[in-house]
């Protein structure tokens, strides 16, 4: 067949028309007959024992359905990796906003007052709020030692390098919590029926995570739990695990009341109670030769997991594996640790630990450059991983990536060298200072190590009675374009027009478990399975002699219709099989950590205004190698959106904590970038291809979150000649940094130059 390729083309988004006309159905748009509304009574203290619960006599409680931990038919936990997080606190609360009790009423507007009318008396227990307090073990709040998980990655012999080193460079870098801030708040509807079991519809990323959690919580067999995804208004990892909690709450209220129950969080509840990006602290100690080669080093990576284990172990794993950046380490020792504090559990957010450890690595590269008198460009060039070399986990770089060349292209696109010279001169005077910064990085796509093997994802493709085909996956669309790209892949595999392929709405009664929609795995891993399941449809038709090897669209449709008419349902399945050459040792944390890495160089230009101490990004170049780009418009949308979130992470978004509770849980005081805060973000792709992904694709969803923070903070440090090692970097921190250097006062006379350092 001679036809134009569909992959690589920016076809219209499958659900786009419904989105631009307002017809898309999000969970709060769905109404069921006799539906009542649920609300959650939460802990007001960080840690303590529940003594007494009182219901104010001013409310007629007979109108309400009330659920406590005692109403849970199964196990009181949110089943995920470990089972330590309760669905409803019973005797002990371990963080502010921990769910204790549920209320439901036919009128949603009376619920806030009812929640306020429930008084909970506690016996307070000592609480801890920082990683340092947790490490001191003065108070043990989780397990035997406050530690959720540790990893040790060792390569070569670090012990011997310090004596050979011409320079030993040390640094400590921290990143703050970040709220996902999807514009659609979390929400869920549940219906219970003794014969059918429980059905939930919601805003969510991972239908089968919820399925598993509800089976354990409600003590129901698999066939009596059904999870359906509604159109989902943004997620970014924030709807990976917490929707299991809300689904559990809605299910418990539905079981007790016998009515459909809708729970929709308002913005503040969503911000203060649900997960955020893990705060982190990374310490680097690096041995470097006088010609700027890294000889080896130690990296200590610690994240604050909050009060329960949830996903911290896996976030930690990805952060630890990415901690060495895109550089060659002859020897390295990476110690990683997730610790407990009395804050709501931190969780998945785009990048999943990598933005934290890569911020540290890329700030540290600039520090090394300054220490030994090389440029930021040159230090990176001399240490980039080359094909044939191995990463920190001994994963061999097999593809012909040339990071030096990638960086050169990025520098040229950003006009980096000319800017460097110009800013050095312009910064001598005036009250605005400009700087440029680089970040080079990599991001592994798919689950880490043996993860994909354990997931063992299954994908289906169905030949329909009308001759069209339908993709059956639990992979969810929440803005990335899942339905569009998976349709392109199936259409390409079968030689059909894009319009003849559709994707079933994720519904656990309808679709197999293709794994969670996380870890930049959908296009690369699930896409590849979609391709092989689609080819299975073709093979069946050909082997039954309903279709020739070469066929027209009409012939395919006729053959498909004939098959369905004769045989009934026509489905082809494909299950993930790990490539034979992939080796991973879970014990030693060594081997092929990821099926593919995407590579990138990002360059930021910033202006710091010394009258307001605010920094703004003026230009941003995002250059990446992501394998084959299957849909240029969607891919660019992913990169630009990720960079925007990265700019927020760097300069705007600060979670203010007090006793483990977020104090600024509103869009008025937690500031994400608006249209006027962002520069045009310039996106460029290199396409090397990837043998393990569908049509050569790698994952891209998380990648753009990794680079902006270090590129921007490197640029701010360049502009002011001050090292900033913590994000978010708000005007008050810039002022602090300048005061520390005594620069603020002397500024008017002297000015500050570009390119200096504080070491």
């Amino acid at each position, binding site marked *: 067949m001679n036809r134009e390729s569909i992959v690589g083309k*920016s076809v*219209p*988004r499958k*659900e*786009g*028309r*419904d*989105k*631009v*006309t*307002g*017809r*898309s*159905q*999000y969970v*709060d*748009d769905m109404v069921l007959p006799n539906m009542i509304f649920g609300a959650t009574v939460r802990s007001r203290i960080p840690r303590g024992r529940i003594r007494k619960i009182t219901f104010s006599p001013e409310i007629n409680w007979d109108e309400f359905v009330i659920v406590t931990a005692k109403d849970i038919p199964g196990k009181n936990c949110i089943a995920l990796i470990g089972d330590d997080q309760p669905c409803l606190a019973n005797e002990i609360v371990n963080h502010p906003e921990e769910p204790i009790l549920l209320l439901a009423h036919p*009128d949603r*507007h*009376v619920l*806030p*007052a009812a929640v306020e009318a429930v008084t909970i008396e506690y016996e307070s227990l000592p609480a801890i709020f920082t990683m340092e307090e947790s490490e001191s073990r003065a108070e043990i709040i989780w397990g035997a030692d406050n530690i959720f998980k540790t990893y040790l990655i060792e390569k070569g012999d670090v012990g011997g390098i310090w004596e050979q080193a011409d320079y030993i460079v040390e640094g400590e870098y921290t990143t703050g919590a970040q709220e*996902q*801030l*999807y*514009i*659609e*708040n979390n929400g869920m509807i549940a219906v219970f029926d003794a014969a059918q079991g429980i059905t939930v519809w919601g805003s969510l990323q991972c239908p089968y995570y919820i399925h598993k959690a509800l089976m354990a919580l409600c003590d129901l067999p698999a066939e009596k739990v059904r999870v359906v995804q509604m*159109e*989902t*208004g*943004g*997620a*970014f990892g924030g709807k990976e695990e917490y929707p299991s909690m809300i689904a559990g709450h809605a299910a418990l209220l539905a079981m007790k009341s016998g009515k459909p129950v809708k729970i929709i969080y*308002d*913005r503040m509840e969503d911000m203060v109670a649900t997960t955020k990006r893990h705060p982190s602290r990374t310490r680097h100690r690096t041995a470097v030769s006088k010609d700027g080669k890294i000889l080896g080093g130690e990296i200590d990576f610690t994240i604050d997991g909050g009060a329960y284990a949830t996903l911290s172990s896996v976030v930690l794993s990805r952060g630890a594996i990415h901690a060495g950046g895109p550089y060659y380490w002859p020897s390295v020792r990476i110690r990683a640790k997730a610790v407990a504090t009395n804050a709501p559990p931190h969780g998945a957010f785009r990048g999943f630990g990598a933005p934290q450890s890569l911020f540290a690595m890329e700030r540290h590269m600039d520090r090394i450059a300054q220490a030994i008198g090389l440029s930021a460009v040159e230090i990176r060039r001399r240490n980039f991983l080359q094909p044939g070399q191995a990463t920190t986990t001994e994963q061999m770089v097999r593809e012909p990536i040339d990071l030096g060349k990638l960086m050169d292209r990025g520098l040229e696109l950003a006009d980096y060298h000319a800017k460097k010279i110009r800013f050095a001169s312009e910064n001598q005077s005036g009250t605005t200072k400009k700087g440029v910064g680089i970040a080079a990085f990599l991001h592994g796509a798919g689950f880490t190590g043996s993860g994909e093997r354990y997931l063992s994802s299954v994908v289906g493709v169905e030949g329909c009675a009308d001759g069209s085909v339908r993709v059956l996956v639990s992979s969810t669309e*929440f*803005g*990335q*374009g899942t339905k569009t790209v998976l349709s392109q892949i199936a259409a390409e595999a079968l030689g059909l027009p894009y319009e003849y392929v559709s994707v079933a709405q994720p519904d656990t009664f309808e679709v197999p478990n293709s794994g969670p929609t996380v870890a930049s795995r959908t296009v690369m891993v699930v896409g590849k399975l979609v391709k092989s399941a689609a080819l299975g449809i073709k093979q069946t038709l050909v082997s039954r002699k309903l279709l020739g090897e070469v066929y027209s669209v009409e012939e395919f449709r006729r053959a498909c219709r004939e098959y369905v008419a004769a045989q009934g349902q026509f489905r082809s399945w494909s299950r993930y099989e790990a490539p034979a050459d992939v080796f991973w040792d879970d014990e030693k944390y060594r081997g092929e950590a990821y099926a593919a890495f995407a590579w990138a160089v990002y360059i930021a230009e910033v202006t710091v205004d010394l009258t307001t101490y605010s920094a703004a990004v003026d230009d941003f170049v995002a250059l990446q190698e992501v394998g084959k780009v299957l849909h240029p*418009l*969607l891919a*660019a*949308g992913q990169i*630009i*959106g*990720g*960079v*925007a*979130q990265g700019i927020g992470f760097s300069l705007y978004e600060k979670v203010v904590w007090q006793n483990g509770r977020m104090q600024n849980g*509103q*869009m*008025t005081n937690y500031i*994400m970038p*608006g*249209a*006027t805060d*962002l520069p*045009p*973000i310039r996106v460029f792709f290199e396409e090397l291809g990837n043998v393990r992904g569908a049509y050569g694709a790698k994952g891209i969803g998380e990648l753009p979150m990794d680079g902006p923070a270090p590129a921007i903070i490197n640029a701010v440090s360049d502009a002011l000649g001050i090292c900033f090692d913590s994000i978010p970097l708000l005007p008050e921190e810039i002022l602090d940094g300048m005061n520390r250097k005594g620069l603020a006062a002397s500024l008017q006379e002297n000015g500050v130059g570009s390119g200096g350092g504080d070491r």
Partner: protein
Amino acid sequence: MMDRSESRAKSEISFSVNGQHKKVRAYPMERLLDILREQLKLTGAKEGCGEGECGSCSVLMDGALVNSCLVPVLQAEGSDIVTIEGLASGDTLHILQESFLENGGAQCGICTPGMILAALHLLNGKPGPTMEEIREGLAGNLCRCTGYSHIVRAVAEAARRRTAV
């Protein structure tokens, strides 16, 4: 907290929505957003923050762009309201809807209805805005997916097409 059991406190309020006359019974201080979504089943306007920060509940009221979560329904009496549902005619999309679709202006879609109405409001007052004016015009509407570039491009493209017509 208002007392909902007192139905006599409800008033009859009339306004026009997408060219159709509507009469609703509502408490005067009920939010226009809730009336649109719950009584009139126009669920295109979304609640993102409930305090006028995100703009996802934006509608046009007598030509002005308002956050319907901040408008007491009483204030809508006699007004002319346009929601996202009023833009397309049948299967034919509005130029802005088409342009958002083609330029990647909608990702998760939750801010899209409000964003398109903000863009319409902008173009009604300024048919040929500069890129900066587009960003200014959309500054009251937050989007977490796109980083705004494709939205800005979609609005610019729609403006070009509209003036070319």
